[in-house]
């Protein structure tokens, strides 16, 4: 046993690489921006990877690299995944867009999929979640639950996705509670429990009693639990962090898409596209809806979810005015995915400016 591993090791030291056999499994690589233990964004991507492995069994082999900084290192890590024989590579953070594109050009036979970006090529597609759908249901719940008529939003970065979701939440809250106002705090990070706690406390100090977050750590839920307020979980089921405060979590589920793309690349039917997944594709779901919610709130949550899932209702259907009085979505028009990707205005009623 010892001797064998020693020999294997020496063989590798001598650079005897195993030649690729014909029946090698299909290899899929993943690049995560955070640790797989973040219990949020990267954790959910990794859960998708595990589901993918379960689904295909021995036919595929997956590899991941976690905690990859979005600077000069990303290109190297993606290159090394391509070099080590991965046939399909998912890079799961916006900052990986340009590095992924550069590597995709150099490895035309490898397929690349980049989450949340807008650049595509012959062998590189993009995929994103309709997070605004989950955010709309969150807004409805927050609007009904708030007693101070003030809800809070912890923003990460002022990019279209976050701006869009702030709008979606606020329109939803307004639809059930005309007196509601929203306060927004930016933490300039996707995952920073310290700053998220500070932001949560700052919002609650200003009278906020329901917290929405566009960041990935459970810190705001913990802060809300401590002060007897309410909060909505993001990306994964975060109910265990705040048994009382937790309303529900909008959970990401990347597995359906990972399975679909892997199958397509294996079959040779893959075409790069700009894929949007939400309630309808079961890539977003409401996890652990709290039993302590009033019945009318619970009913409204279920109803809103069902309407969005069936396609009966789209949050960005006109007429919508921005907070400067301009009509940004005309009556009868629903924003297309391309337009959704470019939202850079706040809806009427948000008394704040987008940081420039």
């Amino acid at each position: 046993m010892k001797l064998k591993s020693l020999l294997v090791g020496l063989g590798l030291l001598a650079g005897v690489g195993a030649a690729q056999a014909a029946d090698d499994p299909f290899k899929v690589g993943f690049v995560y921006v955070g640790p797989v233990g973040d219990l949020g964004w990267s954790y959910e991507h990794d859960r998708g990877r595990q589901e993918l492995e379960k689904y295909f069994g021995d036919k595929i082999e997956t590899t991941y690299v976690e905690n990859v900084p979005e600077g000069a290192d990303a290109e190297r890590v993606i290159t090394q995944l391509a070099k080590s024989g991965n046939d399909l590579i998912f890079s799961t953070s916006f900052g990986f867009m340009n590095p992924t594109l550069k590597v995709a050009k150099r490895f035309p036979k490898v397929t690349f999929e980049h989450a949340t970006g807008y650049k595509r090529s012959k062998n590189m597609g993009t995929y994103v979640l309709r997070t605004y759908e989950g955010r709309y249901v969150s807004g409805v719940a927050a609007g009904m639950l708030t007693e101070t008529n003030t809800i809070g939003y912890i923003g990460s970065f002022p990019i279209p996705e976050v701006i869009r979701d702030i709008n979606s939440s606020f329109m939803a809250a307004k639809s059930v509670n005309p007196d509601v106002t929203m306060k927004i705090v930016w933490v300039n990070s996707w995952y920073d429990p310290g700053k998220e706690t500070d932001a949560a406390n700052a919002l609650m100090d200003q009278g906020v009693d329901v917290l929405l977050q566009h960041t990935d750590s459970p810190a705001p839920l913990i802060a809300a639990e401590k002060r007897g307020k309410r909060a909505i979980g993001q990306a994964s089921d975060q109910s265990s962090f705040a048994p009382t405060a937790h309303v529900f979590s909008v959970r990401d589920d990347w597995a359906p898409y990972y399975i679909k793309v892997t199958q397509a690349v294996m079959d040779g039917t893959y075409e790069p596209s700009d894929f949007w997944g939400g309630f309808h594709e079961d890539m977003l779901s409401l996890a652990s809806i709290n039993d302590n919610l009033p019945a009318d709130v619970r009913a409204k949550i279920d109803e809103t979810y069902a309407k969005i899932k069936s396609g009966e209702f789209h949050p960005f259907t006109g007429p919508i005015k921005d907070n400067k009085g301009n009509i940004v979505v005309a009556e009868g028009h629903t924003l297309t995915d391309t337009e959704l990707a470019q939202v850079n205005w706040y809806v009427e009623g948000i008394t704040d400016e987008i940081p420039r």
Partner: protein
Amino acid sequence: MIRVQARTEPSTLMTFASPLLAIMLTLIFGSILFSALDKDPIQALHVLLVLPLSDAYNISEMLVKMGPLLLCAVGLSLCYRANMWNIGAEGQLLAGALGGSAVALMFVDSESFMAMPLTLLGGILSGMAWAAIPTYLKVKFNSNLILTTIMLNYIALYLLIWAVHGPLRDPDGFGFPESALFSDATLLPVLSDSGRVHLGVVLAVLLALFAWFILSKTHLGFKIRVYGADEPAATYAGYNAKGISWFVMLFAGALAGLAGVSEVAGPIGQLTPNISPGYGYSAIIVAYLGRLHPAGAIIASVFLAILYMGGDLAQIEMGIPIAVVGMFQGVLLFFLLACDFFIRYRVVSSRENMA
């Protein structure tokens, strides 16, 4: 009874033996760690320490990683030699990236041959300017350099984040916090076909050698060493303490600024909010591993670059989680610095004082 005794002279033998001892201890620890995780320890050590140098691409990438570490560490070594406890390389690096990007973005549609040199100059001057703030506060008001430089790291980061969300943001980038891609004329020339190793890495090595020359062959270098070793003696000899402080800090700022601008105008090719994975902080480790010597910094920065790359490769090749890699790296650095203890101290057994 075993006790520790200070040596009258640092041991020459231990100066060379201590890193070897540290590496042996780490290999033993690593073998136990990886075996406990059911990973082949020899393969793991091979992936962590040898694979980063296994082909032209990996060597090139190792050099890309080494560049900013080396630049920051050389500057810090000089500062620490002169008892200037500059923890601000990270901020100076970010200031360099920001200043350089501001220049580079004036040349987005230009192929001018001046674009690249002016961008580098912008980065260097920005790094120096950022280093000048705590130096002035220190020289003028004797403020605590450690605190001011740390705080300025955060200010530089937020300044960069503000700029990349605001004035320097790509107007065609859908509001994402990234600048436009720099023009080819702005980018540092790449030295090999197979990788991303660029002119900045060459400059880093040349500057390390230059710093070595200054420190060991010039009067200024002598003054820095005397000042650091014995401040009262330096003052008595009439050395200009303020001048020395200004020189080492501005030199360090220039190097860190160059490191920052070399990242944005090198492998990254644009300004993003995530320029540095903490190079300025890691450089403190590099400076100490290199025994505060510019030549030592070259070896130490290569070493740390290998370790960082090995960490990624261990995940790709063997599925070793990053936390385990981090533990291995931490233990290695701990042993390296801890074994230096034996250069100045020795362990003796004695029968004295046995009551």
